[in-house]
Each structure stands twice: as structure tokens, then as C-alpha cells.
């Protein structure tokens, strides 16, 4: 590993990190504006033009708030928990390719922080680590609402991770690789080669599971405010709360990116060969990726302000009795299809 390579990686890390953070801020703004629009309101429009600086104001407010730690709390874990949640959420993005590749200084640079050959497993592993943040936050707060929120959350995440993982397995079967680049390459070409058309069932399962994984409505049982006040972060305030907030939105961004990568051809621009266009192609690919991702981020908000929350038993039934068997059937069918085509 030479110095230049190291610098390039560093730059990529910074760019991805900054992009994630900016997107998070955009999401916070969008969440408030879109929800307002859907309810016939205007939403925040005072801070900056059209209220665009609202997330910054929110951030400053978070900084200014008093940092409370409940007296009965388990202090080290209480402080550690938000970080445990946030770090995996930010790390996940490292393996997602957000564009084709560009050539600078005679070097081909992949628009991806790390090309891991078990990329998809890496993502699944990290999302499962995030559960610790929630569980420990809930437990260490020494509050019944937090604990219940944490327990619910962990059970929910474990349940839906299975369905999600199995839905992804069918994609892996098609691509024959765990590398995300391979999966994208598999979807390259014409429009219908995207996995969403090849694996619609897997897509639906994955989409539902992703909503559950990110604790978004209609699956936000973790923080069902009517029952649990704020769920696992009831006792959190100030920056620690902001970290939870950040993690939630970072998770959403990752989830949207992953959905795009797995089912919508990633950075693929339909009917276009990006590599032949050089830098323009790379820019187009990044734009295409961002656009697709933006749609799914919007979908997150859209769904949140449309559907009511599930009851907990309904959630569990859906996860174990519907999505899991469906995912297994889907794997079986995909495997059968692949075997049959291989035999020919």
C-alpha cells in the first residue's frame, strides 16, 4: 500500500463521511418539510432560505441542551451506547459502491471506499452490531420505557434480519458472489436486468425488512411514543440523543443505498455503458446512484407519514410467519431455476 493509495482511501472516506452527514441533514430537513406538506402545512421555513438551515439550527440546539444522565443509570454503558449504535451505522457505507470508477493520475479509482469480497455479509454483520447500541441504551437508562424499547427493538431486529438475509441470499445466488461490485455488474446492461425485475418477491421482502431494521414506521415499535414515551432513548438528551438521531438517519441512508445496489443496479444508468464515457460516465453513474437513493429516502418519509404502526404481535407474525417462509420459498425457487438452467 503506497502513500498515494492511502491518501486516496482517506479522501474517499472523508467524502463518503461528509456526504453521509450532509444527507442526514438533508433528511432531517426533508422529513419535516415532507411531513408538513403531506399534512397541508408548510413546515420549517424560517431558518435560511426555505428553511434550509433548519438542520443546522437543530444541531446547535442539540449542542446547547443540558446533557442529562439519570442517577440510576449505568454510566459507562449509558455513555457508550450511542457510539455503539452510530459507528456501525457510519461504517456500513464503506463497502457500497456509489459510482463506476474514475481515472486520475493514471490510476483507476473505484468509487467505493473498500471493495470487500464478502461485502454483503459485512453489511449484515454491522447492522446486527447496531442492535447492541439500542439494547444497551435501553438497559443502562434504568427506565422501564427504555428497557422495553430496547428489548422490543432487539427482538424485532433479530427477527427481520433473518428475512432480510434470506431475501439477499437469492440475490447472491443470482450474482454468484458476495461482492457488491459483482452484484452490480450482474445487473448491468439493459433495463430489465435489474434484480427488482428478476426477484420481485425478494425485493418486497427486503424492503419490508429494511423498514423494520431501521425502526421506521410502520415498524417503529421501538419508540412507539404512545406506549413507550421515546423508547430506548427516552432518557437521552443533548448530543447523545443527537447521536441516536444521526444513527437512525445514517441507517436509513445505508438501507436506501443497499436497496439501490441490490435491486436497482446500483450506480447503473440504464441503457448506457458508463465505462466508455470516461469521467462523464462516472459522474452520470454517481448521479444515477444519488437519484435512485433519493427516491428510496423519500419513500422512507412517504411511508412514515402514510401508514399506521403495527402492533407488536402483528409485527412478529409478519416477520416469522410471512416474510421468513416467503424468503425460503424464494431461495428454493431461485436455486431450482439456477439448477435447471445450469443443467441445460
Amino acid at each position: 500500500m503506497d502513500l498515494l493509495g492511502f491518501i486516496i482511501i482517506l479522501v474517499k472516506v472523508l467524502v463518503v463521511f461528509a456526504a453521509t452527514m450532509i444527507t442526514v441533514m438533508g433528511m432531517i430537513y426533508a422529513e419535516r418539510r415532507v411531513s408538513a406538506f403531506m399534512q397541508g402545512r408548510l413546515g420549517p421555513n424560517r431558518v435560511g432560505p426555505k428553511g434550509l438551515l433548519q438542520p443546522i439550527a437543530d444541531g446547535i440546539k442539540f449542542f446547547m441542551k443540558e446533557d442529562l444522565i439519570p442517577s440510576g443509570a449505568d454510566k459507562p454503558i449509558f455513555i457508550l451506547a450511542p457510539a455503539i449504535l452510530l459507528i456501525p451505522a457510519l461504517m456500513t457505507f464503506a463497502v457500497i459502491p456509489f459510482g463506476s470508477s474514475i481515472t486520475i493520475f493514471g490510476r483507476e479509482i473505484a468509487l467505493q471506499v473498500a471493495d470487500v469480497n464478502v461485502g454483503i455479509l459485512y453489511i449484515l454483520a454491522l447492522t446486527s452490531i447496531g442492535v447492541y447500541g439500542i439494547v444497551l441504551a435501553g438497559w443502562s437508562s434504568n427506565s422501564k420505557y427504555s428497557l422495553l424499547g430496547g428489548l422490543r427493538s432487539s427482538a424485532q431486529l433479530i427477527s427481520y434480519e433473518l428475512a432480510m438475509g434470506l431475501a439477499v441470499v437469492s440475490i447472491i445466488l443470482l450474482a454468484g458472489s458476495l461482492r457488491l461490485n459483482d452484484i452490480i455488474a450482474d445487473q448491468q446492461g439493459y433495463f430489465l436486468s435489474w434484480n427488482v425485475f428478476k426477484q420481485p418477491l425478494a425485493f418486497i421482502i427486503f424492503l419490508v425488512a429494511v423498514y423494520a431494521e431501521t425502526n421506521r414506521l410502520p415498524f417503529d415499535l421501538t419508540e412507539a411514543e404512545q406506549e413507550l414515551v421515546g423508547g430506548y432513548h427516552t432518557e437521552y438528551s443533548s448530543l447523545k440523543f443527537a447521536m441516536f438521531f444521526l444513527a437512525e438517519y445514517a441507517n436509513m441512508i445505508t438501507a436506501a443505498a443497499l436497496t439501490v445496489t441490490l435491486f436497482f443496479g446500483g450506480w447503473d444508468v440504464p441503457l448506457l455503458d458508463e465505462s466508455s464515457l470516461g469521467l462523464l460516465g462516472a459522474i452520470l453513474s454517481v448521479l444515477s446512484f444519488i437519484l435512485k437513493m433519493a427516491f428510496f429516502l423519500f419513500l422512507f418519509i412517504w411511508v412514515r407519514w402514510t401508514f399506521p404502526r403495527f402492533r407488536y404481535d402483528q409485527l412478529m407474525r409478519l416477520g416469522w410467519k410471512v416474510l421468513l417462509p416467503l424468503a425460503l420459498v424464494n431461495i428454493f425457487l431461485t436455486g431450482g431455476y439456477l439448477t435447471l438452467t445450469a443443467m441445460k
Partner: protein
Amino acid sequence: MATIIKSYEPTFWDKLYFPALLKGLMVTIKHFFRQKVTIQYPDERHIPPDGYRGLHRLNKYPDERIKCVACEMCAAACPSNCISIIPGPSPWDDGKERYPVRFDINLLRCIYCGFCEMACPEGAIELTEIYDFSNYSRDDLVIDKDGLLGVYELTKKQNYYTKKSHSPASLPFKTERT
């Protein structure tokens, strides 16, 4: 004769839920593009309809004489006991010999039901359309006779809120407006 009500049998599509979910999404996205109903309060002001019950006022006759005769019917009718009146002899020679020496309304206690307006035999107390009279202290929200008469001066000729974008005159008692 018992009526037979057919229980709802969900069809295959109903059981799938997806059509219903899409329908729901369509509803919200339709609202996304609709005209918004919010009023930008400090810049624009909602003009209340006639009959709106807001801040009180004490009416006067054209010759500047206070209509109120301190009969305390409003205080008797008040369900929240927010009106307190101290009566006294009228400073005018002719006409009704009673007169409110003090007339205080606790705007925090008041529930703006308008019973005082209905109880008043002289048409002296009225509820105006003024709704934004918030304040920083409880004491400042007890409006006295001068305040009530000042409100009358503000509202006797025209609606207090003339135009949506128009910033109305300041109230005759200490308020904190944006």
C-alpha cells in the same frame, strides 16, 4: 325480521395488502402537492369570522359615557369567576347612577364563553375578535377598565385585523407581540 348482513370477505388482493398500501401512498402524495392551509402567523394574521369570541371590551355611548352600570350580572353569569367589579356612584349627573369603579377581567381564568355578553342588560361588555394578546406575566393578563375601554377604541370602527398582512395596532395593555 332479522337483516342479514354479509360479512366482509377479503379478496385475494385485499389479503395481499399491496393495493391498499399503494392507495394510501397515493393519498399522501396527493396532499403533498396540494395548497397548504397554514397561515404565516406573525407576517400574516388570520381574520376571525364574525362572532369570534376573543378579548373583551367595554362599550361606550357616543357621548363617551361608559355603558356599564356595574350590575355584576356578567360576574354572576361567569362560569369561571374571572370578572371582578367594584361598583360606585356614577360620575355623571343624569342617567343610570351606578358605575364601575374597577372592572377587572382575569384573561387567564376566562374561558371566552361569551356568557357575560349575553347576561349584560346594557350591552356594555362584548367579546371582540382580538385573539393574540399573550404575555409574559400572569399579572399583566388581568385587564382593567382602562384596558377594556382601550380595546373598545381599537375595535369600535372596524375589525381589529384589517388585512392579512397588516400588522395591527398595539393593544392598550402591556403585551408581548412578535
